[in-house]
């Protein structure tokens, strides 16, 4: 009787549950997005690929531009330059004229020829928007471009600029759009008509903010990709990306910071997926402001180097996925293999250096003082960064052990950038540009005012000589002089402790067994989709 009465009362909720069950039963697994087909690779990316304009920035994604378009020269392991759309090149004796011998029989995806005139057309629109690309040294240095013949193209620089060849390999803006893709006025800054490429993929389907489908370019001039189709799904959330991989909706997680490092370890430990970590691609460091405050004193800067337990930071915060850094640029970068004695983690040394600098620990107090002023410093980091925040907390704890009070300030990106540009910090979390931009782009940001790094180095006694060497190294014409200058620059920065290198950033990859032939590109913004296979 009681049961009957309960059922009577519950008839409306029960009806609803029944309705829901009917709906659920209609949802069979054929609605699942599981990737079942052979030779199709489904990956995810946090953002939409953008309009695939090879010469523009946001909302164009590096990842998509790097996958889709090709450069004249490619960047290989250890900075080796590899012919791509240019099969060879010559540099004039004065280092100002670069002559590229273009690959023959290369066609764009619309069937048109890749030749010197289309290269010229691309350079014209890039140079018409020089200001937009002024961050890239090469663009500012180009004086003129010339079509010598159908397959020979010449670029003349205003001054000698040794990193030019390396910069021809960057993802944007120096990649090539087919003529029919240009807008009517030829200015790609205002947009493109169609993404026409010489590359291994053709954009065959696109749903903005949801997915992009790339089909293998059957007329590709080089080695054709092993997979027939590449599907890029937009999944903004890292954890959701992990769940999509576990469900089988995507076949690969690849990139820098695309999932939390905890998730990476969990996927690795699950035994269901293969995982890989790349060689160092860029540096994570603290910029030490030598121009003011306690860090104007070299002893305090060196004390900092000895006080931070980098191994604990790398192991604890990044689960060992990032590599510990003892020099500001990793040794696998060109000219960066310099022998520098690392600062060891040694709290006693750090304390002794602070004592020497006059920062004494008064009896009964925990913070050192000098002339009655406590040793308080500020570390600025990007508030939303999942690595910088815990690392800041760990550094705070490290410095407390030597009697230094560290205030950690997490800021929103634009405010952090403003603080950096005005050198309004004691310590600031910073990443280098990475391959293929370093070490020369790193050098440029050090001697050029405006970024905040030059400003933060004003406390280095030999700053003028250092910045002159940085300018000179870009103009060198032989390897010996260049290496000599780089060695001197890296040694001065190391000895002056104007950076605290913490770790080297790496790319990660997680994929099931059926993804074959995995390999990381040496270039930070390139993708390996053209070389891998899917055998389900």
């Amino acid at each position, binding site marked *: 009787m009681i049961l009957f009465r*309960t059922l009577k*009362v*519950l008839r*409306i*909720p029960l009806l*609803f549950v029944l309705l829901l069950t009917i*709906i*659920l039963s209609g*949802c069979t*697994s054929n*609605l*699942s*997005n599981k990737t079942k087909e052979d030779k199709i690779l489904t990956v995810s990316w946090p953002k*939409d690929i953008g309009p695939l304009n090879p010469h523009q*920035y*946001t*909302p164009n994604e590096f990842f998509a531009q790097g996958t889709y378009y090709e450069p004249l020269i490619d960047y290989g392991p250890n900075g080796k330059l590899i012919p791509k759309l240019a099969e060879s090149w010559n540099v004039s004796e004065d280092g100002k004229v670069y002559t590229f011998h273009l690959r023959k029989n290369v066609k764009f995806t619309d069937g048109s020829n890749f030749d010197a005139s289309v290269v010229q057309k691309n350079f014209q629109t890039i140079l018409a928007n020089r*200001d*937009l690309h*002024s*961050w890239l040294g090469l663009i500012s240095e180009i004086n003129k471009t010339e079509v010598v013949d159908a397959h020979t193209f010449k670029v003349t620089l205003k001054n000698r600029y040794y990193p030019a060849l390396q910069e021809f390999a960057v993802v944007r803006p120096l990649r090539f759009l087919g003529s029919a893709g240009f807008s009517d006025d030829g200015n790609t800054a205002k*947009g493109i008509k169609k993404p026409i490429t010489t590359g291994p993929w053709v954009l065959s389907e696109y749903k*903005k*903010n*949801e*997915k992009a489908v790339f089909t293998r370019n059957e007329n590709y001039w080089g080695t054709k990709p092993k997979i027939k189709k590449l599907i890029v*799904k*937009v*999944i*903004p*959330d890292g*954890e*959701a990306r992990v*769940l*999509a991989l*576990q*469900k089988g*909706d995507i076949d690969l997680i690849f990139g820098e910071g695309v999932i939390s490092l905890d998730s990476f370890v969990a996927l690795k430990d699950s035994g269901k997926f293969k995982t890989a970590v790349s060689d160092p691609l860029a540096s994570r460091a603290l910029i030490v402001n030598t121009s003011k405050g306690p860090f104007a004193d070299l002893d305090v800067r060196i004390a900092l180097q000895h006080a931070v337990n980098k191994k604990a930071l790398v192991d604890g915060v990044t689960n060992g996925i990032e590599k510990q850094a003892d020099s500001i640029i990793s040794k696998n970068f060109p000219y960066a293999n310099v022998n520098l004695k690392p600062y060891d983690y040694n709290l006693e040394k750090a304390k002794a250096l602070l004592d020497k600098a006059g920062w004494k620990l008064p009896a009964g107090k925990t913070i050192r003082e000098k002339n009655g002023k406590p040793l308080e410093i500020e570390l600025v980091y990007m508030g939303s960064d999942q690595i910088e925040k815990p690392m800041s907390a760990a550094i705070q704890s490290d410095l407390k052990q030597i009697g230094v009070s560290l205030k950690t300030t997490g800021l*929103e*990106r*634009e*405010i952090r*950038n*403003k603080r950096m*540009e005005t050198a309004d910090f004691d310590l600031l979390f910073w990443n280098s540009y990475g391959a293929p931009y370093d070490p020369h782009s790193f050098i440029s940001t050090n001697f*050029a005012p*405006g*970024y905040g790094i030059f400003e933060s180095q004003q406390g280095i006694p030999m700053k003028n000589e250092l910045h002159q060497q940085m300018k000179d190294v870009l103009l060198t014409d032989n390897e010996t002089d260049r290496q000599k200058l780089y060695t001197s620059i890296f040694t001065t920065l190391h000895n002056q402790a104007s950076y605290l290198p913490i770790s080297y950033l790496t790319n990660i990859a997680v994929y099931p067994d059926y993804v074959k032939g995995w390999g990381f590109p040496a270039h930070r913004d390139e993708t390996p989709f053209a070389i891998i296979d899917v055998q389900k």
Partner: protein
Amino acid sequence: MKLFVYVWKRLAMMVPVILGTTFVAFLLLRLTPVDPARAYLSVSNIIPTEETINLVRHQLGLDQPFWLQYVHWLWQLCHLNFGISFISKIPVSQELVVRLPVTATLAVLSLIIAILVSIPLGIASALHKNKFIDHCCRLLAFLGASLPQFLLAYLLIYFVSVKFDLFPLQGTETWQHFVLPSITLALGLIATYSRLLRNGLLESLEEPFVLYAKARGLGTVALMGRHVLRHAIRPVVTAAGMNLGKLFAGTVIVEQIFAMPGIGGYFLEAVYHRDYPVIQSFVLIMAIVFVLGNLIADVVQAYLDPRLTQQGTRKQVE
């Protein structure tokens, strides 16, 4: 007729409210510490020197007086032009046309689910006050109110999508793609609405008209359906009206997790980059949705209780 006049009056009142909101938003945006010209340069990898900042400020129209910028923006709006994004250089309306329907579908579906589930739960709880069913509903309400949306979303994805493969995980391709995100958004509302309704019903059941109705021999279903529910559901209607706007504005986490290209993610990006045209458009849309949500709730209230549209209601009733 009275309802019609009431709606017209309320619609007319929308104009100053929306104008006021957009003006305050316009003003506040310009008081924030970061210059959008600087943010634009930073995104474009251009060193922000005084020259480049001034150039970009001029290009973006930020060098004009504040009032002129506001009037210009209003004039553009009159032509249904929401402006062009500072960062992507794509007209804001182009993005809104694609993104707004996703968020709207999600918000409305969540509201419908919440109401459809809350009504039977509220009734069952009220009819079985402090009994097993009421305790179960209370537990559900407690869970719904205390579970953070992101955690619920991950739990639903893990169990319903990954483990049992009942619904797709991410995207907007079919109606099934909207089920899990809508449930995620609805659960918190169900917690509130079912408890509001339960309390409303319990209070109404004590009213003299219930006694008269029972004396007239009305059965439980007729009594609840025709009299008590109509009276008790009013707080739920008010809450739903308020929540419509909140749902539009608060879908960002759910949109991100379920990879749905709604307006939440677009607005978040715009805030990071100080993309004024996008932020202003978002504020405008939110103002309209909030005001409309409240208007709809008030109209439904007026329909449920016609005394609300009359002047001096209390006196007449007394």
